């Protein structure tokens, strides 16, 4: 059987492929939704197995560092306990202020809970188990239970939605340094779960470890959702703006559930 290629065969093959691709992409939403509907239960099982295996592996590989990690955690724990005591005090103060101003909790976000089904191989998209049927719309913000920003809905299907992570290269939004209202910039995704804070006025003092939160300026995300920590500040005297590398707070490989902000 001689099956080597000739020009005619290749041409027919290319034309057929182009036609099929056009047709498939015309019905892309329906096709993907169809596959997701029966693959979701299997993906959930794979996700759980993967998570357990990965936890086990990292525990085995990280055994050497356990002692130093334990000391570090104990130190952090003490620091957190002090912060907790301070927060208790603040919470009481906040409560009384809310009562005084007649502000109820109904003013907080309206949230929808969803489970992560899969993660895109390019790593900056995830698929969640809530879709158009549950009132999910494009561009709705997605957060973790700790109010850490993950991304926003980029595509919706009947029962599923795609979430574009903030680290995606197409993602950019307004952000500010926590407790420094006037120190704002734009967070840009760099891909591979990396973030970058750009356009910070050079006269502002930015330090490593500063916490970056969302700003409501762009209208994309609500105010004060946690984004990340400043990892490295890049400042030159020649430029009027400075930049900083950001370490995202969310750890998508460890998250299983997310919340979608339906209204803010």
């Amino acid at each position, binding site marked *: *059987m*001689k*099956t*080597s*290629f000739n020009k005619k065969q290749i041409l027919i093959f290319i034309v057929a*492929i182009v036609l099929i*691709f056009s047709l*498939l*992409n015309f019905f*892309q939403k329906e*096709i*993907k939704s169809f*596959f997701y509907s029966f*693959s979701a239960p*299997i*993906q*959930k099982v*794979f*996700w759980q*197995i*993967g*998570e357990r*295996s*990965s936890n086990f*592996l990292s525990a085995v590989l990280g055994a050497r560092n356990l002692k130093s990690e334990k000391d570090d955690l104990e130190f952090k724990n003490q620091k957190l306990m002090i912060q907790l005591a301070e927060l208790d005090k603040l919470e009481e103060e906040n409560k009384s202020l809310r009562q005084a101003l007649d502000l109820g909790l109904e003013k907080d976000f309206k949230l929808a809970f969803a489970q992560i*089904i*899969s*993660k*895109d*191989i*390019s*790593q900056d*998209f995830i*698929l969640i188990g809530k879709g158009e049927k549950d009132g999910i719309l494009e561009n709705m913000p997605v957060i973790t239970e700790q109010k850490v920003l993950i991304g926003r809905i*980029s*595509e919706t299907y009947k029962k599923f939605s*795609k979430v*574009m992570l903030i680290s995606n290269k197409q993602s950019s939004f307004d952000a500010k340094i926590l407790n420094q209202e006037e120190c704002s910039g734009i967070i840009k995704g760099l891909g*591979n*779960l990396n973030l970058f804070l750009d356009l910070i006025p050079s006269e502002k003092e930015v330090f490593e470890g500063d916490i970056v939160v969302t700003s409501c300026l762009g209208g994309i995300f609500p105010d004060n959702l946690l984004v990340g920590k400043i990892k490295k500040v890049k400042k030159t005297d020649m430029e009027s703006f400075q930049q900083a590398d950001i370490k995202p707070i969310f750890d998508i*490989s460890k998250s299983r559930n997310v919340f979608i902000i339906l209204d803010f």
Partner: protein
Amino acid sequence: MIKKLLLFIILFYFLALIQTSFMVHFSVWGLIPNLIFFSVIIWNIFERSKNNFGIYQAVAAGFFLDIFSSKIIGFNIIILIYLAIVIKLFLKSYVRIPFLEK
């Protein structure tokens, strides 16, 4: 051949599920090994250079990669077909593996 292709379609469907739900937990320096790309490359290397089955296989593999990724349908199919053809042409022109030529 259709039976064989059907078998590979099922295999690639499950590989795509494993890739997007299981393998994502095992990134090494931010990189995740891609089982589907790896399978297509290996098959095309060890397939007889006369056969075209590796190319049909690349179409099936690319299709499932596209379904479970955010790219348009066709993106990974084209990459995999291109990869399969390049491997085949390279092996046909420059490499002889005696036990595969029989």
